């Protein structure tokens, strides 16, 4: 309940922030700036959302946006950056790891053309990377669990420290659970992810359920992304222990997770990235850069959104 | 079932006069004329480039002449399209037959007609076969089974089936004239005989046949009239009583040929160049013969006797057992080994087996001799240019340049490219498979002269040819092949065409 209010509040804050950005940065700009958005991943759903939101915001700013899809070809991103640098665009937006396109970023830097990243990764040659805060997402779900179980009981964690964006989530959850003296982390599992993680997480969870047969001995399952949460849910349901009140959370709010959350079972919460917010914030950030502002932080986080049965659909 | 002859109607007559056709700079036809009547076999003769093909393409509606008149039974007509030619009752049988190898004879014969159908698009196979059988019988052909697969038939039977196919349709414009371009080029003697019989049947029914061939003997035997073209112009049209070999050759070439075959020079030495002992390959069994320096050995036999397989086995193009010695040394396996020791080869199918049609002719000439024309793996272009320039002279090849591609040359000049290639080695023994097939008289004479030049230099030759007068005229000895066995080798001197043919058939008759 409290979260839905927060969600609305966040949206308002975003609109306000965008408005301020437009007033602050956009005012100094002449309309008709040429901006190139270059991505190898346009066909992926998340990318589509933020590119569309970027275009919508850019239209309000009076920009001329050219979206270039290299269809998975990362080297072609470099080539197209070189092309638009030659063409003399005013700004470039990318959503690929900067480490892979160093040559293109060098070309842009040499021509003093600012580059802004959307969910791209940090790099000195990028004015700002607009993305979601992984620390924040983990904090939201781990605190959700701590509150739901009254700060006491056994918790199972699913993490994956080999992949940096997921590793930071585990760090935060560790800290939150440690802060509650009565919460006991029963196991910190790294599942095999070759199939996404559902099957192996289910197997690991089944073993844990067998090892802890007492109802109430497992109070919650915290997963660093949605697939282990879904696997744990399957294991709990298969073991017939869905009525013990075990709380499960995931992160990313993928469609399968949203369905499970909407169904109102043990899987209670996940966190969604605000892709549209990333797109429009990237536009506003670029507007600030073009307006001559020197950004202090080169990573700009767009608030994320807790998904529960109230807003899962 | 009986075929209704055309006799009774006034004889159809098609005439072309003063036909001119120009391609770019080249005047292919410059006053050509031809008159074709029902009930005659009419030969169209001329060297390659004389304009025969162009004239036929005009008749077929594939080309429109720049000037000239075409009349049908005296009334002017136009031939703007192949459909118009078909409408006038003309039918064309090309050297490369349009057949679908995988379908049956009956289906091939109905390709341009609707199949007999029972409704719902289902084919009535029985009716289809009966219709094909009836059409074949109109030509007097009973040995072809309409159910046989077309690809399994010999080229002669394929051609007969194609001719019979024009008799399938009983509706629509009746065909009255057939144009056959080099029909016997790929046929054996027996196959050709069957074709001739079918043509005579057609003639007796009042059809006209326009017959294009380089084979003088066929022309003299079959034709009622002969029209000769030279340089795109009409030279003469002669009736059966006026026509003679010498006259046709003179009209075609504009030169007076004393004789077609140049005199043989006496062999200079008698060292054995090629010795073959108990050779086996495919159907070939126990082949043994020797070719001496300056000697020409001919190989005669019916189609399927293994004549050209023998040459391919000698070249190493097909596996073989037994001994082959070149100048007393054992020959290794594979074509590369053969070329390396001076065994040279002019294959039967020049387009399929000899030429790289879209590549400079010098490349084709140099290809088998690459080891001698390169240093450290790099081609010596100057050496090739020098060599090819000399060979072009030797074989009297007419080409714009060494870079010209073979596809742009006439058949005779294409054959000369392969002769140049064979001479480049230079050869110790030269194997020739149908060396003058589809070649005009002028080029033929050049090729004969080349062969004589080689024997004078002491080169040994083995020639396979279906042209029996050619074998008799060129060879010192002729080996007769019967189903894979070399039954006898006879001296060519004094042999007549009939006697040689009899030798070829001997086993079959006996």
């Amino acid at each position, binding site marked *: 309940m409290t979260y839905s209010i927060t969600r609305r509040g966040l949206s308002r804050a975003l609109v306000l922030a965008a408005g301020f950005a437009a007033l602050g940065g956009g005012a100094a700009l002449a309309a008709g700036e040429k901006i190139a958005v270059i991505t190898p991943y346009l066909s992926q759903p998340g990318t589509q959302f933020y590119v569309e939101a970027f275009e919508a915001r850019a239209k309000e700013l009076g920009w001329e946006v050219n979206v270039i899809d290299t269809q998975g070809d990362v*080297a072609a991103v470099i*080539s197209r950056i070189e092309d638009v640098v030659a063409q003399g665009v005013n700004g470039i937006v990318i959503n690929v790891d900067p480490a892979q396109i160093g040559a293109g970023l060098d070309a842009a830097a040499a021509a003093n053309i600012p580059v802004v990243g959307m969910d791209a990764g940090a790099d000195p040659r990028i004015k700002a990377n607009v993305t979601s805060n992984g620390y924040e997402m983990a904090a939201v779900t781990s605190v959700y669990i701590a509150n739901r179980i009254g700060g006491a009981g056994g918790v199972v964690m699913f993490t994956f420290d080999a992949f940096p964006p997921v590793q930071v989530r585990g760090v935060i959850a560790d800290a939150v659970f440690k802060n509650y003296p009565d919460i006991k982390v029963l196991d910190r599992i790294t599942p095999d992810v070759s199939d996404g993680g559902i099957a192996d997480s289910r197997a690991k969870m089944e073993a844990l359920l067998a090892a802890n047969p007492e109802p109430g001995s497992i109070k919650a399952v915290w997963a660093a992304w949605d697939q282990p949460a879904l696997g744990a849910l399957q294991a709990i349901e298969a073991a017939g222990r869905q009525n013990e009140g075990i709380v499960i959370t995931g992160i990313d709010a993928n469609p399968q997770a949203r369905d499970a959350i909407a169904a109102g079972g043990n899987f209670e919460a996940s966190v969604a990235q605000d892709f549209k917010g990333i797109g429009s914030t990237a536009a506003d950030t670029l507007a600030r850069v073009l307006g001559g502002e020197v950004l202090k932080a080169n990573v700009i986080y767009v608030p994320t959104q807790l998904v529960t049965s109230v807003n899962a659909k | 079932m009986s075929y209704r002859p055309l006799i009774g109607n006034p004889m159809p007559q098609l005439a072309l006069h003063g036909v001119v056709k120009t391609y770019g700079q080249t005047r292919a036809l410059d006053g050509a004329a031809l008159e074709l009547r029902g009930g005659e076999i009419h030969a169209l003769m001329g060297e390659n480039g004389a304009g025969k093909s162009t004239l036929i393409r005009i008749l077929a509606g594939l080309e429109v002449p720049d000037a000239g008149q075409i009349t049908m039974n005296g009334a002017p007509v136009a031939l703007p399209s192949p459909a118009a030619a078909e409408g006038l009752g003309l039918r064309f049988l090309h050297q490369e037959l349009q057949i679908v190898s995988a379908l049956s004879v009956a289906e091939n014969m109905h390709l341009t007609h609707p199949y007999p159908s029972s409704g719902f698009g289902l084919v009535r196979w029985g009716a289809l076969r009966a219709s094909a059988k009836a059409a074949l019988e109109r030509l007097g052909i009973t040995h072809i089974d309409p159910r046989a697969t077309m690809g399994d038939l010999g080229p002669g039977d394929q051609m007969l089936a194609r001719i019979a196919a024009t008799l399938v349709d009983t509706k629509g414009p009746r065909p009255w004239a057939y144009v056959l371009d080099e029909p016997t080029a790929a046929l054996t003697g027996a196959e050709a005989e069957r074709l001739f019989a079918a043509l005579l049947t057609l003639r007796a029914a009042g059809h006209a046949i326009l017959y294009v061939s380089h084979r003088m003997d066929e022309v003299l035997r079959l034709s009622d009239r002969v029209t000769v073209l030279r340089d795109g112009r009409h030279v003469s049209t002669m009736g059966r009583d006026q026509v003679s070999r010498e006259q046709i050759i003179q009209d075609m070439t504009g030169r007076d040929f004393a004789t077609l075959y140049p005199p043989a020079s006496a062999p200079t030495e008698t060292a054995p160049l090629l010795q073959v002992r108990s050779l086996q390959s495919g159907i070939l069994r126990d082949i043994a013969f020797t070719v001496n320096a300056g000697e020409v050995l001919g190989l005669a036999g019916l189609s399927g006797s293994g004549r050209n397989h023998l040459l391919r086995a000698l070249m190493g193009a097909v596996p073989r057992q037994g001994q082959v010695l070149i100048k007393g040394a054992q020959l290794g396996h594979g074509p590369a080994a053969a070329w390396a020791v001076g065994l040279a080869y002019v294959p039967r199918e020049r387009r399929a087996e000899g030429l790289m049609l879209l590549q400079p002719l010098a490349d084709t000439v140099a290809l088998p001799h690459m080891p001698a024309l390169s240093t450290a793996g790099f081609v010596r272009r100057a050496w090739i240019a020098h060599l090819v320039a000399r060979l072009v002279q030797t074989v009297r090849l007419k080409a714009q340049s060494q870079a010209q591609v073979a596809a742009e040359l006439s058949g005779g000049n294409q054959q000369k490219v392969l002769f140049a290639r064979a001479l480049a080695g230079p050869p110790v023994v030269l194997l020739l498979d149908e060396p003058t097939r589809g070649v005009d008289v002028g080029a033929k004479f050049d090729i004969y002269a080349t062969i004589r030049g080689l024997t004078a230099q002491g080169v040994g030759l083995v020639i396979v040819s279906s042209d029996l007068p050619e074998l008799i005229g060129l060879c010192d000895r002729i080996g007769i092949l019967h189903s894979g066995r070399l039954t006898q080798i006879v001296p060519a001197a004094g042999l007549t065409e009939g006697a040689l043919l009899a030798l070829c058939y001997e086993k079959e008759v006996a």
Partner: protein
Amino acid sequence: MVRFLRHYGTLMGMAAIIVVFWVLLPDTFMTARNWLNITQQVSMLTVVAVAMTVVMVVGDFDLSVGSMASLAGIVAAVLFTLGFSVPAALAVALGVGLVGGLVNGVLVSVIGILPFVATLATLTMYSGAAFILSGGKTIFGRDIPQAFGDFAKSGLPLGSLGDKPFVLPWLTVLALALTAVIFVVLELSTYGRRLYAIGGNAEAARLAGVRVTFLRLTAYGFTGVGAAVAGLMYAARVASANPTQGEGLMLNAIAAVFLGMTLTRHGQPRVLASVLGVLVLGIMDNGLTQLQVDSYVREVLVGLIILLAVSISALGRKAIGRR
């Protein structure tokens, strides 16, 4: 007229494309820097296209070049993570390319599978191998040696251009060098002339003493190694390796060779013509991006240009054949 179009149509078309871009982009297109960019952008495609020319000279083609490029990049990157030196890792990756190419050659030439079928099968095999070796992930960051990535960002200094240094990118240098090597092989060596003979008429070549089976097999070695070189160039340019990153190379390389074939008199594949074909594709990408043409529209346009060139060539051939 038709013959003229056929002989010079593609060349005139290329000139027209360049002129159009020059007029529409007066300040940015016809600059030395932009052309250097183009040569660097097409360097990988050039390598694959000239290698592809070798098998197309023989009358075959190779669909597996794209996945071989990916595989070579992955092999090198995996070896980097295992601590191999840069030269050792590159040598192994090139070796994989050679072996992969010769496998294609054996399938097509010795066993006698149609090139389309054989190389389609190896396409999926090599792609699968790249996924297995990489675990499906992109290998990047600290795993890729600095020197390897820097190679693609630097070049041969050739003095200065205005106030900036004029540098010929190493990728361009590499593409030029390999083009020169393949040119020498195809045009000047007996080996190359024999390959042309096989392509012109395989049976005639065999009867003329050419070892058709063996030479046809070896031609695939060139595409294998060429694809591997291109894959490594790609990996250096993006300083990472991904099991799918070479995919786009195959169709573009075949398209470039076909475009090139329309330039030659008798429609034969020639090395320099293939390079011109590659340049047409590269110029189209560069110019249309600068003109802000939608990337999907750009693909339609590139396809149309290929069709147009090949149609003119085919019509011209028909006109000649009618004689």
